[in-house]
């Protein structure tokens, strides 16, 4: 990510706004069901077993991204502590815990047109009935892989690999012009 993404206009449109989310702890957690259970205990937030669902508490979230893969989100300062805690909690259970905090950049997309904006480039059905609040998945946005999490009817979080952030910011800016 370089200048372009950082230069996003903050919450420009009333119908839709696109903003960067603050830095965060991001951990990729991999393992079987027992590992997931143990991890949930150490992490303090459920790791959903249901496909494409996220669980969240006040400060943490766990996004199901694959049958043995979760993205754990937490405040930025907690990385080391969480890695230690989960590592300790799972000493005997095979798993993989990898810090990917800096790998990704998060965007918040909000507003009544948020889903429409995403659908300029995302081929999923984002109707709330098909993609309810709490659903998350990796998918594509135009020419880029993203992870998408619906946090509210009109609020999405988009996680993209950092070198694609400029692209995503630029893309959304152009796509917003084409709403209407």
């Amino acid at each position, binding site marked *: 990510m370089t200048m372009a993404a950082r230069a996003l206009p903050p919450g420009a449109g009333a119908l839709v706004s696109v903003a960067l989310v603050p830095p965060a702890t991001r951990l990729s957690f991999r393992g079987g069901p027992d590992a997931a259970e143990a991890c949930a205990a150490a992490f303090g937030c459920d790791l959903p077993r249901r496909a494409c669902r996220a669980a969240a508490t006040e400060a943490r979230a766990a996004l199901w991204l694959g049958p043995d893969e979760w993205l754990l989100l937490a405040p930025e300062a907690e990385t080391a502590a969480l890695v230690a805690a989960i590592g300790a909690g799972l000493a005997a259970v095979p798993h993989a815990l*990898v810090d*990917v905090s800096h790998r990704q950049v998060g965007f918040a997309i909000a507003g009544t047109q948020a889903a429409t904006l995403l659908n300029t480039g995302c081929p999923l059905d984002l109707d709330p009935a098909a993609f309810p609040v709490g659903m998350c998945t990796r998918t594509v946005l135009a020419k880029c892989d993203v992870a998408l999490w619906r946090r509210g009817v009109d609020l999405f979080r988009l996680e993209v690999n950092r070198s694609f952030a400029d692209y995503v910011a630029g893309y959304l800016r152009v796509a917003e012009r084409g709403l209407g």
Partner: protein
Amino acid sequence: MTGEHRLARGGRVDRARPLRFTFDGHAYEGCQGDTLASALLANGVHLVGRSFKYHRPRGFLAAGAEEPNALCTVARDRARTEPNLRMTQVELYEGLVASSQNSWPARGFDLGAVNDLLSPLLGAGFYYKTFMGPRFVKGTTLWAKLFEPVIRRAAGLGVPPKEADPDHYANRFAHCDVLVVGGGAAGLAAALAAARAGARTILCDEGAEMGGALLCEPDATVDGMPAAAWVAATLAELARRGATLLPRTQGFGYYNHNFVALAQRLTDHLPHVPAGAPRERLWQVRAKRVVLATGAAERPLVFPDNDRPGVMLADAARAYLQRYGVKPGTQALVVTAHDAAYRTALALARAGVKIARIVDTRPRPAGPGLEAARAAGLPVTVGGTVVGTTGSLRVSGAMVAQASGTGATDFETVPCDLLLMSGGFTPAVHLFSQSRGKLRFDAETQRYLPGDPAQAQASVGACAGSWGLAAALDEGSAAGAAAAGSGAGRSHAVTGDHAGEGGGILGALPHGRDPARVKAFVDFQNDVTAKDIKLAVREGFRSIEHVKRYTTTGMATDQGKTSNMNSLAIAAGALGRTLPEVGLTTFRQPYTPVTFGTFAGAARDDLFDPVRRTPIHDLAAAQGARFEDVGQWKRAWYFPEAGEDLHAAVAREVRATRAVAGIFDASTLGKIEVVGPDAAEFLNRLYTNAWTKLAPGRCRYGLMLDEPGFVMDDGVVGRLGPDRFHVTTTTGGAPRVLNHMEDYLQTEFPELKVWLTSVTEQWAVIAVQGPRARDIVAPLVEGIDLSAQAFPHMAIREGRICGVPTRLFRVSFTGELGFEVNVPADYAAAVWQALWERTAALGGTAYGTEAMHVMRAEKGYVIVGQETDGTTTPDDLGLGGMVAMSKPDFVGKRSLARPDLVAPGRKQLVGLAIEGRTVLEEGAQITPTADPPVGTHAIGHVTSAYWSPTAGTPIALALVENGRARTGETVFVPMPGGAIAARVVGPVFHDPEGKRLNG
């Protein structure tokens, strides 16, 4: 008044909003709601262009998407110039500038019309038979230099724009329960029933207004409302129920799994385009159910000189009259095989157009239309035919006769300035057919109709072969309700139904004239006549697909919407077969042409493909770096100082690195964290090397093969702990390698407990290389003992640098003492800055990929993709020692034992030493002799070649047959200016003992 032929009232145009426009430089006035076609007709303009091949004068044949003749170019400015638009679909706006095509100097006087005189020569496929040149001019010269350029200039319809299109195009993915294509009576009823049942509904229609044929039915009523009012009420209810309504939107492609592509025109009808507004939008719709309600198009009749301006489809004339309030002529002759034309004749008569004659080609027509015409006193000839027309730039009369068998009798010429024809209606089954639905031939009505659907889809209304308003509405309603899963639709009370209308004819009318001398057009745009089709059949083109390709019938921009059925029937007649025996040509996307921009959408400029930059990019740019594209990445290529070119900069970067130190942004390297109790075993199976014994804290260079045994990727792998490895890959190979690993892990070795995580973007990498590298790094590092003993070459440590976490590798791709500093990406810029300050202070440099390449070549290190090309084995590279053949298995191992991979004579990596200062060209071939005759077998090629600032000579790496055994031999690199001699040497040019690495 917006044109002298405009009626005082009636139609859907807004006479209070006159619009000025020009056509071929002449100023005219039309009104809001007009198309360019209706506006020109209102002004009495019928001649609007010239035909493709014979340059015959042409007018409007139709009123909609099926128009083959009336093509124009509309230009807003030089870049916003668009050729080949159908004037029947161009919506009028204030200031529109349009011009006709394919004529010079003017459409009224066109020199190209000499082709019409030459037409006896220019029949179907004439170009296959000539232009080969006299036999003594061998080869293709005459064709390519003489004839082809002339033909190319003559062909081609409109003139393409010369400047880049500045407009934007948008895209939308959409999902729905029910997609309805076509907003006529049937489509509206379907959409309404679906929406009422609570289905998510999308309705699209290519017209500017929804309503289809209802827009031309001022007399019909639906559920007690005038048709137009019903349309408006239906649209309002649909909007209220949240249906997505898309006028100006054609459904152009029906793909697999109910995926339908729509093209929406957003701004072409506006006089002023809002800045930045997209011009068109591609809708990519996944529908649970699709209802096709695309209507039917009228067919022309095929008779001699049926192409003069003023010869028009009857239904089109009714549209001009009743939708646009335009009188398309003053004296009309109607020739028909279908009952609907009577309605047109009556409507025209009511509007004051003289009906010179109605010629019904059927021997015994009957029905209310005929009766009403007779009752109104219109002259009707039954069992008649038209055998020709008069006039030049506009029809002035029709030669009418009685049909008798294949001939005609009782010729008479009837004056007229409008000749309307109705051959019956062809259901628009394009999308149905695209959906892979099989058409069935209905022998009774001689039509192809949708058979069983192949996807979750239904066809309703005129496109399904039904006729009449009530039928369309009721079928639509039923299909809409069914698609929404809510049982039956409803039935509608209508007046003005015309349910009983029918009839139609396929093929040519009998004319009894010398068939060799007349031109009865079938495909108007491509100038294909009935005799062309018969010629094709005579010449052995018996398949309809051959007939199509030999005559080009149906291949014009209208894709045969008005011509296909007639040409099929004519071909069938000539073949003596039935229509279904002859078969149909294939319906393909798009339904009508769609702009390239609509497909491309936002993908232009930087959005054409993501530009990936490293976290250090901006700093490197500030330091003056020039960048190169490596896949999607921008990589710093070299860092020129004032006045330096690539070579000077690289030489300086190399010398400074070898003398002091250099720093290099290696962030794009692929990185994969391999974690789990079976991590080492997994790597054993994926790499040629053995990993079990690699101690934590140590690194190893790994070589990866594909299953056929060829080198696929390489990289340094560091072991962080018993069950944790940090694997690096090439920049370009990163996604491929991860996919390859996942593939084997998930499908071949699922029992292994190991997980792979891409950390390419988590870690930025700064290589610090050179004799002073330790001095640069050391002061910034905490928690790692950097001494040579504690931290030897090929080791990895975790600690902190500049206060942030690091994975520090002691590795070298330059042959110098080196470190690769991995830091979490957000910190990279600060760490780079700190390292740079220390490097600069010591007299070191930042270096780019080019210097990196030079230094690794001086050391004989290979680059996968440059020294290898997908046919290279480890042994070819001299890396046989890295292949642990003692391992029971690894990917590619079995293949290495295949006969050709162990055969003698394979190409092997060597160095080439060159006298003099000439740097070889990469890719140059290598021969054993200096002056190889053409066809000499090359024994190898140069893979890398550079000026080596370190050696002070050119160096090169090459793959040469038996290369290692040739060490010391002289080989030759033939170049256009003569061969360059080179001596085969080992591939390492710098510090072969590796002392500097271990410093």
